């Protein structure tokens, strides 16, 4: 079979999946208007149960041994959160509290 898609990800690899749990029409009646317009989505991670490509519908086995299905979105999913862009206001706070407590800078 010709592989017209992306790279084949092997069974047993650690992957992240995504799926829609509730369509907008199925949402709880009490949610606000903006939330009502969008689906309830889910993300989970697990070991791929069969070879697949990114974008395929797959089954994974999670670390608790559950089977979960969804769209394959990432292999060896990384953590990308960090310390963000620098906030210079924090330097001003340091300077201020030290000045108040310990006197001005420069003797």
């Amino acid at each position, binding site marked *: 079979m010709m592989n017209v898609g992306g790279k084949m990800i092997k069974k047993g690899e650690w992957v992240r999946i995504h799926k829609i749990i*509730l369509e907008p029409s*199925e949402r*709880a009646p009490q949610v606000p208007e903006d939330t009502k317009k969008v689906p309830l989505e*889910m993300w989970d991670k697990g070991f791929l149960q069969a070879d697949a490509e990114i974008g395929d519908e797959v089954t994974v086995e999670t*670390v608790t041994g559950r089977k979960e299905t969804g769209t394959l979105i990432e292999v060896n999913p990384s953590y990308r959160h960090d310390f963000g*862009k620098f906030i210079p206001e*924090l330097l001003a706070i*340091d300077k201020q509290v030290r000045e*108040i407590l310990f006197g001005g800078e420069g003797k």
Partner: protein
Amino acid sequence: MTKANDYGSVMARKAEIMLKSVGIDYSKFESGSIAFDYEKMMRETGYTLEEMQNIQYSVNVGNTPVLELKNLTALTRTCAPKEKGARIFIKDEACNPSGSFKARRAANAVYHAKRLGYKGVIAATSGNYGAAVASQAAITGLKCIIVQECYDSKGVGQPEIVEKARKCEALGAEVVQLSVGPELFYKFLLLLEETGYFNASLYTPFGIAGVETLGYETSMQFREKYGKDADVVVCTNAGGGNLTGTARGLAKAGAASQVVGASVNLSGLHMASDGQFNRKSFTTGHTGFGMPFSTWPDRSDVPRSAARPLRYMDRYVTVAQGEVFYITEALASLEGLEKGPAGNTALAAAFSIAQEMNQDQLILVQETEYTGAGKHIQPQLSFARDNGIEIFFGDPGEEVPGQNIILPSHPSLIKARDVDLDHMRRSLIKTAVSTYQVEPRSEDIAFLAEETNSSTEFVREVLKSL
């Protein structure tokens, strides 16, 4: 026979699923009306304070240090009137495994699950409780699933919550992440039904009782080191468990401390709104939980919440997001302590309240939380700025949640703002009557007086006005 798994059908099975997963028959405590026997329910955890302490010590939880913040105290005295400025202390709960006081709740809940023979535990939380449950499950050899509300419809996740997912996974848990919405509860119920795991709910009696050791331990530490109880104990307040457990523990020690609840002010933001989800910079310890859960505790996942903060709050104050961020930076700069911002909500309030007190008085902030990538003032402020939130120095009293974060241009601008407790008491009484649709009997009136830490006269007066 396969059960129907659509939203409506699953929610209809809620009571049955809860009963199996929590192991408590709540009907035993009901009166058939507004009142229920709260103390009986708390006793039925079957764990005495000593047993809870032993459980916690056996899993390395508790016995955390109390630290005096001499430089923050000095700073508060530069803002305070003459001879005012109480000594400020914090209880370093970040020292617990998983990095927060939640370890105390989790230790008891997970121990209980193991004792009852459950193979795993599930908790619905975007907060530190998830990591605490994962940590305790790891020690106890139980499986763990944490269900989090993490992303908005654009797939953007709040840095604090993303870090918590990482932490839970690092501790061996499965993390199921959802987009914004209360229907998280539906997925949570489905998972409970599928796995048969224990619901390590934040609102079960043993969870709350687990926090009593925090209050009790604090009393013992203060008496030993300072010869007296803390005059004021400030508790960050969201779902009410932190304050309830601490207050009950203080009471068990016979402590004379005033208990103050503190929440970050997020008024105007709707917690279930997809668009507003990432316009706040605090995901816990805020009024979005604090107000509704204080005025109607039984909105929790269990029929009767063990967290009932209005019974114990002597005072409830709010602080602005900017004030908490400022204090978090000051804590690092002046005390050499880097701690997570959410855990400093009570510290921001204490900084202000200390200025109303005498210099020989003691004010305790009863928790801290760990910090790291995502869970830090830097990324939280950076995220806010990227989302169009204006950040500037000024008067934090003018902060509009969702629009700006105002860092105090001088520490003297930090003010703990009082919430009208009587208004909250009236709200609770009103909701009780409208929920149960009954004419309150004398048993209900006595119960409501306890619920609101008021009197039967107050309750009767409110009922008359309805």
